[in-house]
């Protein structure tokens, strides 16, 4: 029962946030000093064609009315039509969403798989070389512009060394796996298509490493500092005094507790990955949300901008909700009132 109440409150909260997001994005899109329609139709369009276009997209109606139309459409799952591609925004989003999800998950995986052990290693060898190394690399990771890193990475690993492909999700002449989730790696596994699996994994490496570097740095630092904190706690001294080996001390006690703050920020990390994906996708020719959003923003295609923003803005609260639900189950304290 408590869970239900908690869930309802959170979902209502998310809905309220989404309304806020939609109002703000709508307002921003319509503050536009210029008319995106002329650009969409091109240089040679006649005035009459422009007027017809505006009417078709309801751009000639007053703002509150446009917003109402939009919101009622939302309830039906209709996100309007993109001014640039002329397709329903929801179709555009469906097409680009999986690519971004795959990239973001891969980057998150890199961050976890590399960041956590690095943070632990750094903490237990505090003050010595590994610690300094990890801290330096983390500092760089948190300070490097991701688009610059991408350019360097492509130039080095694709162009100069030829080790890895430099763009797109899969080799040109490899047929992608049949769509189940839209994530090539998972779909290849499901279909047992190892050529597609290999190709899509190879194509994921460079963009995932580039996008994931920042999050790896964040997670490494977080893990290090919470590990240090835990290692310095009283009960740790007790465990050591009991004569437990250092390995056991770290593994059983320290790590588990040190990971709690790290898990907390995973939701936040995923949200920041979406932001980073915008630039990464542009550089790696990755057909995802980020590239779509950039094109939409340039073209002042506000139904598309609105759609992307709503979709991206829902990830963070939903992600947090999922993590909180997990806590609810995992933490015995909340379960027993």
């Amino acid at each position: 029962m408590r869970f239900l109440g908690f869930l309802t409150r959170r979902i209502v909260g998310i809905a309220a946030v989404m309304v806020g997001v939609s109002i703000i994005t709508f307002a921003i899109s319509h503050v536009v000093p210029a008319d995106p329609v002329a650009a969409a139709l091109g240089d040679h369009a006649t005035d009459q064609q422009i007027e017809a276009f505006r009417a078709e997209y309801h751009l000639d109606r007053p703002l509150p009315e446009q917003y109402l139309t939009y919101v009622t459409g939302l309830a039906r799952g209709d996100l309007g039509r993109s001014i640039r591609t002329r397709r329903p925004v929801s179709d555009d989003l469906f097409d680009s969403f999986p690519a971004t999800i795959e990239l973001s998950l891969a980057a998150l995986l890199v961050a976890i798989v590399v960041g956590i052990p690095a943070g632990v290693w750094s903490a237990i060898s505090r003050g010595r070389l590994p610690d300094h190394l990890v801290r330096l690399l983390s500092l760089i990771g948190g300070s490097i512009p991701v688009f610059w890193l991408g350019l360097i990475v492509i130039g080095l690993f694709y162009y100069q060394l030829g080790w890895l492909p430099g763009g797109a999700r899969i080799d040109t002449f490899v047929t992608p796996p049949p769509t189940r989730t839209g994530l090539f790696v998972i779909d290849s596994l499901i279909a047992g298509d190892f050529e597609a699996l290999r190709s899509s994994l190879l194509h994921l490496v460079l963009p995932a490493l580039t996008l994931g570097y920042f999050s790896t740095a964040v997670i490494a630092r977080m893990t290090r500092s919470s590990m240090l904190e835990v290692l310095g706690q009283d009960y740790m001294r007790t465990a050591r005094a009991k004569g437990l080996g250092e390995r056991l001390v770290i593994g059983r006690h320290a790590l588990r507790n040190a990971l709690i703050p790290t898990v907390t920020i995973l939701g936040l990390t995923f949200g920041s990955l979406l932001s980073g994906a915008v630039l990464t996708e542009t550089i790696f020719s990755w057909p995802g949300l980020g590239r779509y959003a950039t094109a939409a923003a340039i073209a002042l295609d506000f139904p598309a901008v609105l759609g992307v923003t709503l979709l991206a803005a829902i990830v963070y609260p939903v992600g947090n909700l999922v993590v909180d639900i997990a806590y609810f189950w995992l933490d015995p304290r909340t379960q027993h009132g």
Partner: protein
Amino acid sequence: MFKQLRQTSIVIAVAALVAAACGAPTTPGASGSVSPSAGGAASTLVIDRDTSDLISLDPAVLYEFSAVFATHNVYETLVRFEGTDLSTIKPGLATSWDIKDSGTRNDITFKLKSGQKFASGNPVTADDVVYSVQRAIKLNKSPAFLFTDIGGLKAEDVKATDPTTVVMSLPKTASASAFLTILTFTIGGVVDSKEVKSKETGGDSGSAYLLDHSAGSGPFMVDHWTKNSEVLLKANPNYGGTKPTLSGVLFKHVQEPTNQQFALEKGDIDIANNLGPEQIAALQGKSGVTTTTADSLQLVYVGMNATVKPLDNVKVREALRTAVDYDGIVKDLLKGNGKKVQGIIPRGLAGYNEATPFQADVTKAKALLTEAGQTSVTLDFLVPTGQAPGGIAFSDLAAKLKSDWAKIGVTVNIKQTATAELLATYRAQKGQLVMIYWGPDYPDPDANVGPFTDYNAKSIGWRNAWDDPTIAQKGRDAALITDPAKRAAAYKDITDYVLHNGPYVVLYQPSELFGLRSNVKGFNWSSIGWAELASVTK
């Protein structure tokens, strides 16, 4: 042991699957790539190109460069140009045509070649031609004005008098020769009416279907278009002409010119379409690759608002024209990949005027300003973001002009503006100096002269608030002259006048730059905006 970690992983995995499930594309195989039937790497031409302008592959709807290029090889037209020659109309689906003066109108009668088939196997008939023209008029999308405004056509003006004869009736105000060039353009593409009619929904004349499918008779057909990703054309087995050696053509959407260059050098693609002059230079001498340039019909220019002081004084406009270092632009910025052209008709079209009287003359420019009573002028300069045709950044070009004009005491405030906003401002006659480019819609000099000189056409002249009824009338008259020599003389007269009196600083005519693998042969770019891919081998 690492219970927390495991639980966390489960949470993340669940979240991932939930997110992915919501994100599954609606069309199966939507992220498709080359299907095995296309013959694979050896016989598919892979072209890297920025195709973000693609909206539809329907010939009655499309008007964007990428769509024109792709679709030209999918649909055939009644008449066509052969190779890169834009001066002679040759037979296409029609073996002959015949212009008759019927008193109030001009009637063009086309006789179709017999035995031609669409990719579906259906025969090409006069009804298909009529259907194609009528649906273009009815849909009234971007290219429709070519039929309705320039051609003055209405739906009922096109008839099939028998299965192999089509009659199109044009008003006397329309130029018949210009109309024929319009028919060579993609809007003149003939679609398979039987097949398209069977795919019509909600009165859309089949445009939802033709958006990413094809129903034509050309050497290639559309296999699929994965939005934002790639367009694959595959060879049409029912093509009536010489069958292409290629089994397919793949247009891959890649925006970064550097990525295109890398892919070309590595052999991952065959043609790179968006290289800049610096990349062309970088590719020289590299093994396995070659470069080629071709004329485009575009003109990059600066529009001057003729009602904004002091641009209303023709001497001031002339001063701005005189001060620009055109040679420097072509040599240093474009690295030779462009031509110094200062008239409003590009090279390649009839009426091209070779005169280039302007080249950075600071003394003369200053003198002109003084004569006009101006010593220091300040103007706003609207500049688009991104790359200009010819492969240089608009910003670099603008910076060069700014420094050229600073030398004569003219200060310009560069305002880089997204295209959407720039076009809107320009169309509203609110610009002062606007940098932009123009390409003719069809390969006839009137396609430029009309917009540049006729205020009432509400095109370029209008945007620069330049109302000169005399020259406008001259332009209209010239459009209807049939004798080539007389027409050329008329256009010389017009272009000379605009050169010194118009509100334009024409900067250059860009070249279209291509990087190719050395084994690609037969790729010849026609400046109107396409290449005949049927003749390409690799």
